[in-house]
């Protein structure tokens, strides 16, 4: 069985190709008419394409019949137009008549018909391309232009009007990509303007009947346009000239504003500026000269212009320890009436204000004799002026710095004169043990009753000032330092008292100082002083020993031109200052001192008992306290 199957399959496999080969011969496939065209509306040609030929040679034939007749004609000419084509000549072409055309493919096995197509010659006209396309460059006043001319295709009968053709042309530069198209209508000539100078143009023309298809483009015609305007070059020249001009103007502007431009771009680095500092000297390497140049001669300010040196207040030092003793020898130090200056915050007198220092000073003063009378000076100017005044009389006084027990008045109104001497005039007339100090105007100028034997120029200048000053500084403490002044010295300070004459003879060599108490200020603005000798010197001497002494300090001048003195307490041992309140009642005593009471010197013990503190401002103890010893 298996053998049979194998044999059958073998036979079948041999037979099938043969059979299949025989099956390849089939009737031809269906042909198809592709297009029919007429170039001149007088003849036309139809083309077809063949379908599968079916393996056998096939023949094609075209049959047609006209619109209103049934007569079928065959294609008269198969060869003229090439393969698979049919050409209808003039005699067979009728216009305005529909042709029904069919192509038949025939081979040995059969035939096949194509689909019929209706053709009206009028509508299938596609002329040939225009002929004799010529392009020429013509010149005009505006520039050159192209003139393109052509002729209709030879076959199209436009002359008789059989066909009406319209034309179209296109132009482009040789290197350009896009064409520029123009409709020319029925004319056979066309002008093209606005040419690129020196360019090469390509031109093509085609045509179309008023109803039909466009022809093919004619072959391109080339034309060279001559260079008629070197426009671009001149434009560049103009631009170059213009930009050069602008560039020159910019340069000129920058040159004119050279400095400001430099400032803008490179701002100057600020350097140190020291007045009087000479860089050149420094460069030369002589620092001494440089630094000398820095020394300003006007520093510290001298006593020339004191109007600028306004002083806050008038301070009178009344040293508690050293009361001025008018009787006796040691009156030369009348001016040693001091009040210990407390540690004023606004002047650096605290450190210098030890009584020991004061003692030395007074001693020194005593030894000086008449010549050492110092003028009670109203020191003017600032604190710095102390020194100056000190210096001014430095030959007379071996004084410490000025902060100690000086009459410090800084009225700025002091006119520049070196002879500023506060004048404290103590009238001599007082036979009493009172010492009346007449406060000169410039010291305590008030509207009334200051003695006027002083430098008149001071008077006015000081007028309001001192009063103002004094009234303003109740707390500051007014320190007087009255120094014994030689009457013959150019001062007006005269301490008139009984002992004064004694004094004038000579300075008592005693080491002790006499203190006076200011009892009151009389009507003539004179301080009425009372020597404290009545109280006994011992206490003073004791006081000298180092106990605390009473210094009278003027608290202020009230409205009645009354010196308000306030005693301050001080520690004997040291200048220990404590709160004012601890004095206990010194403020109370204050209002009682209307008359400018005598500064009670109060024994030290008393004072010590009463208070061991000194107020910061140093007030005279105005309350009468009984010394307890």
């Amino acid at each position, binding site marked *: 069985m298996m053998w049979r199957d194998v044999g059958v399959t073998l036979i079948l496999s041999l037979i099938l190709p043969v059979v299949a080969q025989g099956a390849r011969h089939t009737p031809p496939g269906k042909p198809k008419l592709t297009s029919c065209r007429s170039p001149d*509306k*007088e003849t036309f040609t139809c083309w077809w394409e063949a379908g599968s030929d079916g393996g056998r040679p096939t023949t094609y034939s075209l049959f047609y019949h006209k*619109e*209103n007749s049934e007569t079928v004609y065959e294609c008269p000419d198969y060869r003229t137009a090439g393969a698979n084509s049919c050409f209808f000549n*003039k*005699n067979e*072409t*009728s*216009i*305005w*008549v*529909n042709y*029904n055309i069919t192509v038949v493919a025939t081979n040995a096995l059969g035939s096949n018909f194509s689909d019929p*197509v*209706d053709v*009206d010659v*009028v509508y299938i006209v596609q002329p040939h391309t225009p002929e004799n396309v010529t392009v020429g460059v013509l010149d005009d006043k505006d520039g050159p232009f192209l003139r393109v001319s052509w002729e209709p295709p030879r076959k199209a*009968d436009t*002359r*008789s*009007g*059989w066909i*009406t053709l319209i034309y179209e042309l296109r132009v482009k530069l040789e290197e350009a990509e896009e064409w520029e198209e123009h409709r020319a209508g029925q004319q056979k000539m066309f002008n093209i303007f606005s040419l690129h100078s020196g360019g090469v143009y390509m031109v093509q023309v085609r045509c179309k009947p*008023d*109803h039909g298809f466009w022809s093919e483009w004619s072959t391109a015609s080339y034309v060279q346009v001559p260079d008629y305007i070197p426009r671009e070059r001149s434009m560049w020249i103009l631009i170059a000239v213009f930009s050069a001009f602008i560039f020159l103007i910019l340069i000129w502007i920058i040159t004119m504003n050279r400095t400001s431009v430099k400032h803008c771009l490179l701002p100057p680095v600020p350097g140190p500026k020291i007045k009087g500092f000479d860089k050149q000297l420094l460069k030369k390497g002589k620092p001494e000269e440089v630094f000398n140049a820095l020394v300003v001669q006007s520093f510290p300010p001298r006593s020339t212009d004191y109007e600028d040196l306004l002083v806050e207040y008038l301070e009178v030092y009344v040293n508690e320890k050293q009361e001025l003793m008018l009787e006796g020898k040691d009156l030369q130090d009348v001016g040693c009436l001091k009040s210990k200056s407390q540690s004023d915050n606004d002047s650096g007198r605290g450190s210098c204000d030890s009584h020991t220092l004061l003692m030395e000073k007074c001693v020194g003063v005593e030894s000086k004799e008449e010549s050492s009378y110092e003028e009670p000076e109203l020191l003017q100017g600032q604190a710095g002026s102390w020194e100056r005044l000190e210096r001014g009389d430095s030959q007379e006084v071996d004084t410490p710095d000025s902060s100690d027990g000086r009459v410090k008045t800084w009225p700025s109104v002091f006119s520049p004169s070196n002879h500023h001497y506060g004048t404290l005039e103590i009238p001599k007339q007082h036979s009493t043990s009172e010492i009346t100090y007449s406060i000169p105007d410039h010291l305590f100028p008030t509207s009334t009753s200051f003695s006027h034997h002083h430098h008149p120029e001071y008077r006015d200048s000081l007028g309001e000032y001192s009063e103002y000053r004094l009234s303003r500084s109740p707390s500051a403490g007014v320190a007087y330092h009255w120094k014994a002044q030689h009457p013959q010295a150019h001062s007006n300070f005269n301490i008139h008292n009984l002992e004064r004459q004694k004094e004038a003879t000579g300075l008592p060599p005693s080491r002790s100082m006499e203190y006076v108490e200011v009892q009151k200020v009389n009507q003539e603005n004179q301080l009425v002083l009372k020597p404290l000798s009545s109280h006994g010197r011992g206490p003073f001497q004791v006081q000298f020993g180092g106990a605390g002494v009473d210094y009278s300090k003027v608290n202020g001048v009230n409205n009645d031109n009354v010196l308000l003195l306030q005693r301050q307490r001080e520690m004997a041992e040291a200048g220990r200052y404590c709160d004012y309140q601890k004095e206990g009642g010194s403020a109370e005593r204050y209002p009682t001192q209307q008359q400018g009471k005598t500064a009670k010197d109060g024994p030290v013990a008393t004072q010590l008992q009463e208070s061991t503190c000194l107020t910061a401002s140093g007030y005279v103890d105005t309350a009468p306290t009984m010394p307890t010893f």
Partner: protein
Amino acid sequence: MNMMQVIQSVVWAVLLWPCLVSLGVPLECKDEQGSIILCASISKEKLLDRVIQHAELIYRVSEESCTLFEEMFVPFPMRSQRNHAGYTCATKAFPIPGSKSEIQQISDKWLLHSVLILVQSWIEPLVYLQTTLDRYDDAPDTLLKKTKWVSEKLLSLEQGVVVLIRKMLDDDMLTTSYYEQGVAPYNLQPEVLESVLRDYTLLSCFKKDAHKMETFLKLLKCRQTDKYSCFLH
């Protein structure tokens, strides 16, 4: 493009208006002595030119109308087959030459008369076409306008040809046909394919005949200028 052509047709209508006016007046450009008298008429050449331009315009508008209608109403498979059975163009009373050679053998008189016959034969069907197209629901306005314009211009063309015949052929016997609102076949179902095809056939046949008129007139013109060169081709 359509608008341009409409404008052109209007311009031509305006230009041809004096021609129409002059039709009512007998053209007496020659008195009895044969001397030329200034008469209010145009020369044959100019008239022929104008007639030719008129025919060209008519043809162009008819071609556009046919295209519009074809795009709008005719299904695609049927567009190329204009001659369905039963929808062929109406045959004329006398045979129209179908080829150039035949046409060249026809005399001027025959050419003119052929044109006249053609024109006159289409006046009525165009009126009918107008009414039919109005009944279409979505007929575009341009189509309607064009068909209307064409039918109007056809009348003026007819008048021009009559004058031309009279001038060229000295034939005064022809008169212009008067349009009569005749009883036209009434199309009940305008949008049925049958009627659509019928209308389409009508338009394409008219287009063909317009082309015929144009061609005849142009050939005639050639004969007027240079008789021999026209035939040499």
